């Protein structure tokens, strides 16, 4: 068998990225079973490689893939009648498997298919870890190996995590449906938090050789955009998309050509993505005028202050501190308190920053958080207290597991070690 022509491979790859969620969520409606649906959709993509090379790339690749995957599912059903046995697992409403669609029949997606899938994968009865893993596997179509790599765990560990999450869905009876309007706020939060966690995992990789995992950041953006299309009236969904865009706009400026970390203070602002900023600001305006003052709106507003500043010096620190005060009220975590303390340091000077940070040193939740000592080191350096700064940089170095961050901290450590005490 000869390899399919490159154009076909590209088309299948593009369809994988663009259509996976649609295809899988439609097929699950038919099979009522995650595993069977996954297998049938994978097979459909494999069949596309051969078929598209032979017959040409279809006008609507998603519809082609869905139709073939559904046909695969019906064959599985006929062969082993596993479908009948598995029906109770995800059964919610009456659904008759369609007659064999046959050649020429196109199986269409229903508007709620993708929402059902994502709300099920992000059900609050699942742990945050499981929600992230399931969302990347089922909603984004990443393989377990890819998800494992993104979170630096062994493939077998990730596979077990995904299997256990699916088992919980089936055994605990997590329903496969979209929430009612009463439930929507709570359920949307659970979804949006998951998307934000995926984005954060991509924004700063917890460990490893690269500062960021742009693939994860892009996946998170992709889901946020999809949710925005599917839930256009939900202000929190609008706010989350705004937050991701306003943060992501600075992505390329965060590392230099050598792959080293560039702090926002020294970033080349001409590299910031103006389109993302414009879109983010527009969405943020819409969320705010819808009356939302949620965590996402405040965080997006914080990102917007940086995006709109012409230079580091022109940054409106008073507004940033005020926004952190608001965020701390709504979301009183040690990390938010630390970020507020840092902002105070930029507003009122490094001395003020240090005294804001001091009480946080005893915070158990920050004991192993490298950014606490790194922030302290930075203010000490700005005050010329080089020896203390060197100690603090050294401490932060012991805590960080990301090698790009470590390189940055080592650079600073050398700098203050050369200066007078």
């Amino acid at each position, binding site marked *: 068998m000869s390899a399919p022509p490159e154009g076909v491979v590209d088309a299948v790859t593009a369809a994988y990225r663009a259509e996976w969620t649609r295809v899988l969520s439609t097929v699950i409606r038919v099979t009522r079973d995650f595993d069977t649906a996954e297998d049938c959709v994978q097979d459909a993509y494999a069949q596309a490689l051969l078929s598209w090379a032979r017959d040409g790339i279809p006008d609507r690749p998603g519809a082609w893939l869905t139709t073939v995957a559904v046909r695969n599912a019906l064959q599985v059903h006929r062969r082993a009648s596993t479908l009948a046995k598995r029906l109770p697992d995800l059964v919610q409403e009456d659904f008759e498997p369609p007659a064999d669609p046959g050649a020429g029949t196109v199986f269409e997606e229903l508007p709620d298919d993708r929402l059902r899938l994502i709300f099920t994968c992000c059900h609050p009865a699942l742990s945050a870890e499981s929600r992230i893993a399931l969302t990347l596997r089922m909603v984004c179509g990443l393989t377990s190996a890819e998800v494992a790599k993104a979170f630096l765990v062994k493939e077998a560990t990730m596979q077990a995590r995904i299997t256990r999450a699916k088992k919980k869905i089936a*055994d*605990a*009876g997590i*329903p496969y449906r979209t929430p009612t309007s009463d439930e929507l706020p709570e359920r949307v939060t659970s979804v949006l938090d998951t998307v934000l966690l995926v984005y954060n995992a991509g924004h700063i990789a917890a460990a490893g050789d690269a500062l960021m995992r742009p693939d994860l950041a892009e996946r998170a953006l992709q889901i946020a955009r999809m949710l925005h299309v599917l839930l256009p009236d939900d202000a929190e969904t609008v706010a989350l998309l705004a937050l991701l865009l306003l943060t992501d706009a600075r992505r390329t400026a965060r590392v230099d050509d050598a792959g080293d970390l560039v702090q926002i203070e020294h970033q080349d602002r001409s590299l910031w993505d103006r389109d993302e900023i414009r879109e983010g600001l527009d969405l943020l305006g819409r969320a705010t005028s819808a009356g939302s003052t949620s965590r996402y709106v405040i965080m997006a507003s914080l990102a917007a202050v940086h995006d709109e500043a012409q230079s580091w010096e022109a940054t409106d620190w008073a507004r940033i501190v005020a926004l952190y005060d608001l965020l701390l009220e709504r979301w009183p975590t040690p990390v938010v308190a630390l970020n507020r303390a840092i902002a105070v340091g930029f507003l009122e000077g490094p001395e003020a920053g240090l005294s804001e940070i001091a009480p946080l040193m005893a915070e158990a939740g920050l004991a192993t958080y490298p950014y606490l000592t790194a922030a302290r080191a930075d203010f000490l350096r700005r005050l010329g207290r080089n020896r203390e700064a060197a100690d603090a940089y050294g401490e932060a170095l012991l805590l960080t597991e990301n090698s790009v961050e470590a390189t940055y901290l080592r650079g600073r450590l050398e700098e203050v070690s050369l200066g007078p005490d």
Partner: protein
Amino acid sequence: MCMEFTERNSANVLSFLCLHPSFTGTSVRHSGAGVEVVAGAVVEAPLGLDALYVIQAGDLDEALAIAKRVPPPWDALEVRPLLSETA
């Protein structure tokens, strides 16, 4: 209180058991020396098990909605599927 909740939700509550406080419990557990008898509950208060309801629900969301209606006082409730429906 248990009774009232049970009656009002009779369509879903199949049976319930209310327990005495956890200090009245006695545990039997495996140790290095074999099986020993220990005073107190296996799970220490404040999260000791006080009551057990067997309910019937179409899915987890319905089960959680019923759980939220259990009359106070309680700190936390856990909803778990039954391994088998017949004893």
